[in-house]
């Protein structure tokens, strides 16, 4: 089941993701990234990875986490499907820690150059946490 909805953008890929909690939104966003890069993946989990990013705030943490996953997807020919994401803040910084399952992939279905900060504003609406994300393709 898709964890995101595709929105219009003249040149890039814009999606809408949501979650019951902010952490759930992060999980769904990471799942969306993996799904866009490669809906087809080998059945066996290659490894379990712990990934952590530190950012200036929650919106940046989402973008930074996704960009970290994207970079590793490119360099390791893998996609990373989230098990869980934990957010914590201290001294004006937001840390996102994720436990990811890493799957090897034969090829990318869609190339993504970067995850941009465009339109990323995590906010609660109608009982769920939502944001748009624009991928540079």
């Amino acid at each position, binding site marked *: 089941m898709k964890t995101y909805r595709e929105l219009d953008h003249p040149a890039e890929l814009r999606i809408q993701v949501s979650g019951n909690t902010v952490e759930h939104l992060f999980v769904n966003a990471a799942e969306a990234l993996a799904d866009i890069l490669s809906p087809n993946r080998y059945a066996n989990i290659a490894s379990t990875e712990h990934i952590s990013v530190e*950012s*200036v705030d929650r919106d*940046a943490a989402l973008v*930074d986490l996704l960009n970290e996953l994207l970079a590793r997807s490119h*360099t390791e020919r893998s996609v990373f499907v989230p098990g869980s994401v934990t957010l914590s803040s201290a001294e004006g910084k937001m840390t996102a820690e994720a436990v990811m399952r890493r799957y090897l992939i034969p*090829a*990318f279905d869609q190339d993504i*150059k*970067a995850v941009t*900060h465009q339109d990323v504003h995590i906010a609660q609406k109608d009982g769920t946490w939502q944001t748009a994300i624009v991928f540079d393709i």
Partner: protein
Amino acid sequence: MANMMMQKTDLKKINDETWEISKGSRADMRVPARIYASEELLEEMLKGRSIGQLINLSTMPGIVGHAVVMPDAHEGYGSPIGGVFATRVSDGVISPGAVGYDINCGVRLLYSDRGIEEMHGMIEPLAHEIMRLVPSGMGHGHKEKMTIVELDEVLEGGVAERHAKGYATGEDVERCEASGKLAWADAKAVSHMAKMRGVDQLGTLGSGNHFLEIQKVDEIFDEDVAHAFGLFKGQVVVMIHTGSRGLGHQIATDYIKIMIGAMREYGIEIPDRELACAPFASAEGQRYFAAMACGANFAWANRQMITWHVRNAWQKIVGDRNLRLLYDVAHNIAKKEGDILVHRKGATRAFPPRHPELPEVYRKTGQPVLIPGSMGTASYVLAGMESGKDAFYSACHGAGRTMSRHEAVRELSIKEVRKGLEDKGIIVKAASSRGLVEEAPQAYKDVDEVVDVVHRAGLAKKVARLVPLAVIKGE
């Protein structure tokens, strides 16, 4: 405020191709904003977010003159695609987002000494051979990876390094913007992750709107300049459009993050996080500039390696290596030009005659300006003009999108797109049907109209119109 929608009545008409948004239109504007567009193109722009993004550019600290947008503008992230602005080197900012993730995405044009009538039966096998030699798919690099030491040499050496290794001629070096090498590049400013994304990418085309086309010179508008450029009607030429691949994308990602953190310390506030910036003279600003230069050098080396592959294909099919470089120019880059730092994102530099940065061969004509059309449509060669000074000597970079990729896939079929190309006699070599549909000409503005605006506005003058014979695309 950042997404304020403007009406045409909010703009001041300077002439039929030039419109202005006054500095007082929004409280945080530091300079006016200028739009180069026909009335029809302007009305399309006003429906989207590119004008709001242009106004955001006008808020950049240290900005001079106008914030500018080209007639092929469309919504980007941070800066509109087609956006140009300049900041003072002394106390202005540099912004990675205003350069773009694909650092030095750009175009080069190779010209042969053959007319189409001399290439009978050769175009299809040539396209096939080029596709065989040039890895074109997404994430698909070479099986062999460079070492980090070898990559660092490319990052700092650009086309000069490729020349030293035997992959470029002296003329290739001379006729590339900046001789294909920005001297302040420092490989130490590039992250390990960025390098890992680049080690197998040199000589690859990439996906999306990147392409390689075999083209024919269809029309000459300025005989004297065309002759100086080595162009003649019916001539077969090759256009290459690609950039710095994953390496450049990662450099931009890394430094946008750094700048977001740094802005707080410099007390900078901007309306769009994608325009995150730091003072050009700051440590962060200088490190990004050095890293950006690495990305730019990599892109020029990339297009040079593709050129080498194309020349190999040409030799195999046509029997010689007579493909010369007309010019290679970036359309995503920040350059020091005098005492200002010019940011161009989806805009092409267009230096006028007698500009000291031009190679001697183009001092009289002005810089060749290469404008790729959308797939299956015309491309153009123009020449820079002195009258482009108000736009920091800049021109458009293509046709600009009007339809989202999502909508293109929804509305168009691969069958009709292929048929449309084949009906024009265009040979198509594409690894992906979806990529072909997303790049259908129906998804883009009319490049003839866009280039006509550039010509009428005096940003650059038309020299030649090129039409595709074969299109080679990544996935």
